[in-house]
């Protein structure tokens, strides 16, 4: 296990400044609801504006409306978005993983049909993976796609799908044969397809981004199958690198940390300053690891073990950092407070246990890492 040190080039630093300045104009403080990473609000207009700037679908090929840019450049944009808690909910999943996956595994027709919309911010994706009886254990998925004339008939239930209610498109993983791993296939599904019912499941903080998807004899034409029949497991593993290896796994909290770092509560407390310093140091260290992983992706590698290794500890770190801020807050924050920082802190306290679950629980990730280290 070795990660190679890398730095930003001058062009990459110029991009960082450009994004930072744009966000200051586009999202002046107080004009939007600050969010926590990918759980942030949906704002289709904002997503389209980012698309117009060329900051969505950055790593997608240019001929499909993408930026033809690198994973590192995307990381730079994402850092700035997360730092201000921008409303990235609508485009997040498509930009991070569905787009790259379609670019890699999709047919020419699928690329033309979906990639331009992802890059422009008009398409919002959700991922239909987990099921009531299958959380991290995707090999046990039971929702089934059955081959019929001209396509597939899908039946079953997906659960814990973030953002599905507002999404335009679902990328789902379904069982197409009894083989544990080789029996899974991915499909690109229109959100309004007949037979699909999407029901929000009220989340622990009262929000309704989290959904259950019920498929009843949903017909999916074969042209909407992504990749080979039985190739879904491997494709999904590739997507999980993108889901696990990013700065978003520990930067959801950044707007809270930023506010806390500048507060008088920290200025006046040497103990809080020491805690802040430790958080800053570790954030710097994690950021270097994410940057190294992004460069590996740009070099055509698939750093599965590395991404899992980082995500496992980064999500714990994020939770510990939140504990630190909460400990220094001095009282229980109110979810309905008029002070947006206070309500955001309260929300973070409620949702933070999810950070080490989504994208694979830490317990499973440790097994993934242990296996990867043995190779």
């Amino acid at each position, binding site marked *: *296990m*070795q*990660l*190679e*040190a890398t*730095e930003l080039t001058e062009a990459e630093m110029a991009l*960082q400044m450009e994004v930072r300045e744009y966000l200051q104009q586009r999202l002046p403080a107080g004009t939007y609801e600050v969010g926590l990473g990918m759980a942030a609000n949906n704002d289709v207009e904002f997503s389209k504006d980012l698309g117009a700037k060329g900051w969505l679908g950055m790593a997608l090929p240019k001929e499909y409306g993408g930026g033809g840019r690198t994973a590192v450049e995307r990381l730079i944009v994402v*850092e700035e978005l997360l*730092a201000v808690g921008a409303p990235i909910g609508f485009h997040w999943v498509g930009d991070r993983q569905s787009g790259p996956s379609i670019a890699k595994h999709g047919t020419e027709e699928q690329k033309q049909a979906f990639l331009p919309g992802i890059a422009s911010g008009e398409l919002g994706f959700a991922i239909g993976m987990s099921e009531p009886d299958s959380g991290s254990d995707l090999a046990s998925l039971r929702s089934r796609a059955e081959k019929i004339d001209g396509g597939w008939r899908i039946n079953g239930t997906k659960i814990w799908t973030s953002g599905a209610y507002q999404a335009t498109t679902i990328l789902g993983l379904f069982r197409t044969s009894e083989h544990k791993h080789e029996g899974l296939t991915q499909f690109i599904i229109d959100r309004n397809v007949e037979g699909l019912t999407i029901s929000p499941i009220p989340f622990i903080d009262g929000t309704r981004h989290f959904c259950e998807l019920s498929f009843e004899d949903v017909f999916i034409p074969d042209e909407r199958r992504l990749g080979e029949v039985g190739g879904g497991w491997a494709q999904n593993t590739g997507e999980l690198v993108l889901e696990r290896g990013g700065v978003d796994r520990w930067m959801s909290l*950044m707007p809270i*940390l*930023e506010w806390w*770092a*500048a507060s008088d509560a*920290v*200025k006046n407390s*040497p103990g*809080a*300053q*020491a*805690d*802040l*310093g*430790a958080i*800053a*140091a*570790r*954030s*710097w*260290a*994690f*950021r*270097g*690891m994410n940057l*190294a992983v992004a460069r590996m992706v740009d070099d055509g590698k698939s750093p599965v073990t*590395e991404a899992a*290794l980082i995500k*496992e*500890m980064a999500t714990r770190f994020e939770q510990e950092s939140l504990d630190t801020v909460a400990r220094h807050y001095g009282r229980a924050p109110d979810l309905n407070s008029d002070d947006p920082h206070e309500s955001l802190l309260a929300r973070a306290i409620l949702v933070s246990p999810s950070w080490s679950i989504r994208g694979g629980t830490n*317990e499973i990730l*440790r*097994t993934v*890492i*242990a296996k990867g*280290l043995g190779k």
Partner: protein
Amino acid sequence: MTTTNDHTVDRDLIATVISLFAAKSGHDVVIKAEEEGLLPSLWASVSELGLPLVGIDDTAGGSGGTLLDLLAILHAAGQHAVPLPLSETHLAAWLLSEAGQQVSDGPMTVVPGTPKDTLALTDGVVSGRAYDVPWARGVDRIVALVNDSSGAPYVVTIDPGACEITPGTDLAGQPRDVIEVKDLAVEAVSSPVDRDGLLLRGALVTAAKMAGALETIATLTRGYTEERVQFGRPISKFQAVQQHVVTLFQMATMASLNVSRAGRTAMDGPASFEICALKQVVDKNASIAIRAAHQAHGAFGMTQEYRLQQLTRRLNAWRSEFGDELQLASRIGKAISNAGKLEHVIVGGSAVLEV
């Protein structure tokens, strides 16, 4: 080799160094050094290759090479628990060369400078005490930064024979002495490096050794858990044990990568944030990793006859050298609290905020 700012490492050299250390710094050698102090034959074998002076410009008498070469050598030394004052010699040579002095062969050490130290310079004469001086017994020269009455830093070289040395040891059983000089006439050269500059350089090289030691305790623990059979199967099959191994690789990977990152930044300009962050992180990782490694090894790893303790004791010793977790965290946090913009500092480093 000449010193350049290019971010490459001399991979052939590092491969040679790693096999040399692997061959020369086995378990028994480390035990012997713990009993006898600096082993002249071991020093000679690294000195022949010019290793102690890598990272010091050849025009100053050094071996040339980049800071990254030096960090890679110290990383390898940490991996093999090499019982020599390599980083200390580097720091001494670095202070001398920065002050325009020529360096020469032979083991050296540096006075790290503690709040208790009383060394003072008056008209070319040094008097006073210095604490926690590593390897003072056994080196050819002791180099110290000493302030004159105006507070300006000077580099002085002290002959160990001219000191009263009170022997002590660090947690790894390595020499860490108190030195005392009385009215010693020295050549004092004005130093462009102040105490904080020495602290940062010391933190960087210490973190490199620690990252190396972390790598070894990770691989050692993985190997042990794959061989050790309990309850009828290798303990690596138990998820609870796997978690310790995963933790160890996390701590080591994070440390090694960031040593290189901080080193690169230091080659290009100010790096106070990166170096403080690095050492703070590595100190913390060491405390987590030491526990995980010993826990996975069970009682076996607690004995002196087994290699693990040679590395975990070094990690414990180095954790408190050139800044500890709390000092470094406080320094970073105070600077950010005053200046603001946490995320800009995390992604921009010392170019945004020196701490």
